[in-house]
């Protein structure tokens, strides 16, 4: 069935996330990022950072809260029971450190149908308190 595409172009209110030192350490530990700049304040400062640095995939943490409302938006119309994560892209900009405040905006980029599968593509753009872009994400979800 062809999906409804009215939601393409829709944007959602910005969601902010305060990056905490222990959250960075927790995430880095769980995914196996062992570089001391992700864990140790002194090592991070010696490398020129204000505090521990978030590993790249920490983008999941600060942008996740903004992606959720778009995924669950009835106007987008995803059937969750049949949804799988099809693909993901992140492009990183300025580094994120503990103490940063990250704001993320999400847009519905594309809704399409190919080969009996529905593709829902979302774009997230995360900026920090000084306005610099820290990460853009392209989230592709497939509904079987």
């Amino acid at each position, binding site marked *: 069935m062809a999906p409804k595409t009215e939601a393409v172009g829709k944007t959602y209110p910005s969601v902010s996330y305060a990056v905490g030192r222990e959250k960075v350490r*927790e995430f880095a530990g769980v995914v196996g990022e062992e570089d001391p700049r992700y864990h140790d304040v002194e090592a991070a400062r010696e490398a020129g950072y204000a505090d521990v640095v978030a590993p790249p*995939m920490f983008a999941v943490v600060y942008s996740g809260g903004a992606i959720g409302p778009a995924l669950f938006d009835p106007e987008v119309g995803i059937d969750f029971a049949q949804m799988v994560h099809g*693909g993901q*892209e992140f492009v990183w900009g300025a*580094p994120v450190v503990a103490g940063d405040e990250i704001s993320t905006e999400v847009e519905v980029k594309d809704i399409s149908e190919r080969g009996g599968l529905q593709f829902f593509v979302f774009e997230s753009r995360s900026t920090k308190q000084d306005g610099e872009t820290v990460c853009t994400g*392209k989230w592709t979800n497939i509904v079987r």
Partner: protein
Amino acid sequence: MSALEPGQDLPELKVTPDKYLTYRYAGASGDFNPIHIDDEFAKSVGLPGRILHGLYMMSQVARAVGAAGDGPESLRRLEVQFRGMGFPEQELAVSASVKAVEDGVATIEAEAVQDGKRIIRKGQAEVRVE
């Protein structure tokens, strides 16, 4: 690592997520989708059991390709396609090879295999190497 050449393979990354990894990743990431933390629920929707978070698997690809550079700001871009389910307590192996090096940025291709299945494919990364 220095002087990367096109065609060069990066060291393979092998990791076996333990039985409780999906709970820790759910807590760390905020993704508590029950297909990752509840065997009964996972089975009720036709899965063999709890599956790994796709973004956890991607984080292992990020580690493997990030090893080509040095530290927090080396990984500039990573794109993957998820093409299968990953499970706890089975080894996940990430392989990666350098396609090009230009202006200090290596273009790297990667994939992840578990139990003989290529569950992450078409991984493409840009890593600053100098």
